[in-house]
């Protein structure tokens, strides 16, 4: 049986290039901030969920080595990793740890330290998957060129997403200018978020489109200015059972959550015979959102959701996923964008924190979406607090080759009313 749970504490490190700390110190920073924010003693934590994409930082199961820095010894710990969704999956794990009645207070941590790796993991990580396919196909006896085209030719995350963006633009009528708008909005929002990586105050569409470097097309239709950075950073939340959460000033209650996987949808479509050919379709996000909304008792997300934190390392994804989260009509999200509805002071602010476009420490990114929603509900988002009463917020994450989705709904009242 479900029991009410809430987020009662949030901790984030400054995200960026963090050469002055190591992984353990960075995780510790976020974890202790969250514990202090929740006004807990470390021994009150009953269980821990943690995750990152370990290939990107060069440490296998870093929580085994670094556990002593965040109070793990003697506690049950689950390590979760699902690609880009990792942080969101970790947050959901902590929610289940408490909702199940097994534990009263859980600490969830997501982290990544890309600068420890010799390559920009956030954008090159998917190239590993493609590369593995390439060798797999080569080993199956296909010739070099065919193997490269089918397996290795995906061009990493930007390549995968470029293909998805082109698909979306083709069917929706969205133009490159709209992608510029999303990028400009995210980067200027990030300037108001002290933990964000790329902070470009008052960034304009013109700046993104006409900058000699950022305006350059990297993989059509994506410009360099459209692409997320590879950040270092960690974020953490404290999830507590109702009895404990009641003592918090304004907890962010978990109203609904869901995750959903689709078939791997881009990298080996020829070789594996999978059915998904339009990677901008994102049916798994629709399913997850429907489940989460119904669990939260939200009938009309357009009216009832006050703020959305969408995982958008590439700008078209903010548009696709806001449609799949049922916040806008299918193929029409660029119209409210044009009209400024999704700005911080708009009707439905999307990514007031600056989102993943401005800060991408993979394991931390989807966790930050949940953390930022919690901050907006608690009224503790500081300069990027949206100027309205936030009753419900939706946090989203995508992972894999855009085929995994997690959706978490937070609200100002508990899910089950007495």
């Amino acid at each position, binding site marked *: *049986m479900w029991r009410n749970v809430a987020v009662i504490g949030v901790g984030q490190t400054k995200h960026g290039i963090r050469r002055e700390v190591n992984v353990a110190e960075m995780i510790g920073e976020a974890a202790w901030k969250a514990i202090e924010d929740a006004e807990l003693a470390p021994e009150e934590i009953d269980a821990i969920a943690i995750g990152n994409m370990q290939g990107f930082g060069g440490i296998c199961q870093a929580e085994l080595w670094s556990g002593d820095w965040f109070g793990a010894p003697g506690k049950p710990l*689950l390590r979760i990793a699902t690609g880009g969704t990792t942080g969101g999956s970790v947050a*959901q794990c902590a929610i289940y740890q408490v909702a199940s009645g097994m534990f009263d207070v859980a600490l969830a941590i997501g982290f990544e330290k890309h600068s*420890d790796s010799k390559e920009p993991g956030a954008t090159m990580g998917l190239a590993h998957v493609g590369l*593995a396919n390439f060798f797999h196909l080569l080993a199956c006896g296909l010739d070099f060129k065919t193997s490269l085209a089918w397996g290795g030719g995906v061009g990493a995350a930007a390549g995968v997403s470029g293909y998805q963006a082109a698909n979306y633009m083709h069917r929706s009528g969205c133009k490159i200018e709209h992608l510029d708008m999303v990028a400009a909005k995210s980067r200027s929002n990030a300037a108001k978020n002290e933990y964000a990586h790329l902070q470009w105050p008052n960034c304009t569409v013109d700046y993104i489109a006409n900058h000699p470097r950022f305006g350059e097309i990297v993989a059509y239709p994506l410009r360099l200015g459209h692409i997320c950075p590879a950040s270092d950073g960690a974020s953490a939340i404290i999830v507590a059972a109702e009895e404990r959460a009641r003592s918090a000033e304004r907890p962010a209650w978990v109203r609904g959550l869901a995750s*959903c*996987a689709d078939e791997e949808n881009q990298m080996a479509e020829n070789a594996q015979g999978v059915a998904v050919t339009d990677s901008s379709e994102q049916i798994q996000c629709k399913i997850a959102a429907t489940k989460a909304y119904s669990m939260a008792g939200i009938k009309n997300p357009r009216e009832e959701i006050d703020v959305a934190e969408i995982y958008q390392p590439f700008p078209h994804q903010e548009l696709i996923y806001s449609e799949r989260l049922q916040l806008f009509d299918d193929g029409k999200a660029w119209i409210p964008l044009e009209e400024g509805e999704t700005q911080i002071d708009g009707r439905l602010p999307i990514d007031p924190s600056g989102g993943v476009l401005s800060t991408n420490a993979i394991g931390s990114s989807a966790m930050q979406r949940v953390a930022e929603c919690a901050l907006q509900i608690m009224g503790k988002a500081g300069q990027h607090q949206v100027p309205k009463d936030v009753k419900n917020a939706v946090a989203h994450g995508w992972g894999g080759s855009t085929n995994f989705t997690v959706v978490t709904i937070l609200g100002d009242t508990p899910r089950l009313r007495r």
Partner: protein
Amino acid sequence: MRGKVAIIGYAQSYHQGNMPMTREDMVFEVAKGAAEMAGITREDLDTVINASNDYLDGRTISELFLVMPMGAYLRDYTKVEMDGAFAMFYGMLKILSGTHDIALIVANTQGSTFNPHQISTYMLDPTFDRQIGVLNDVSMAAIQARMYMNKYSVSEDEVAIVSLKNLGNAAKNPHAHRRMPGITIEEVLNSKLLYDPIRELTMSPISDGACAVVLATEKKARELSDNPVWIEGVGSSQDSYIRNRNLYHLEGLEKAAKRAYQMADIKNQFAELDLAEVSERYAYEELMIYEALGFCEKGKGGTLIDSCATFKDGQLPVNPSGGALSADPITATGLIRVVEAVMQIRGEAGACQLPGVWRALAHGQTGVCAQSNIVYILGGEY
């Protein structure tokens, strides 16, 4: 526990050194096998949880192509990057939350992809321990083994008896990788020395393998299964990093076991358990596991194995399947222990079957020198 959770289906592969099968095929067979045994189809799966490790699989987001073979597409899905026994715990949490009724847990590793002992150096502190260049999971185990054996005067012969017992038991287990009927102490003691005192036959082999279980709520379990096996207790704990802890004992496992015993209301584990399946990556480790699980006093693991109490016909048989020494597809090993215990409780263990198994313990571990541990107490229908 708020409600009961049962295991209603399971499957495991024929673990071997270099499986002539892709990862996807291997996983498909166990996922399908477990679902068929539970009498469910893909549409009945509320959640699918994979347990594998990107480093061991040699690719980022290694489960990406397992979504289809696991039957996870368009279903709730997540991955636990630890032993499958931990993934099963997550499955339990989801079911106890009342949001899911049926969970499929799939654990897989193909050790033949890349030498897992080489990968273990990436689990060490990157600033100091990794840089020394001589530490890995086997050399750390050698240090622990020597510390333990010296402190408690445990002989190499006593350690070899563990291998003798487990590899001998494995001879009757068709799923085991290393089956050695008629194995002798001399054979164990004369096997290749890797890091003193760790020898080839006192250490687990590098295996390819997969394992799957289906979990269900009490209501679903009674609908679908004639002999569900209930999770009566579970406990888990992560220990400090190897440099910061006492290597003479497995304190993390001790804590995990205490939690599981408390939940299952077990006061005298030696008398109340009919069987234990433990993940002993090294023969000496099984002796330390006896002590941590409270089967004997601290330092008396050697005496316990000498008394033959943990042999197949002993008072408390440990690893009648052959344990991790007989097959070790890393992230699947703990879940295989759960499955072997379930098989014994249901009377489906074939040639390994022991009489009168009602209540069994299963143990899974992750990390160098068994840093993170999970213990289950499983019971049949009384």
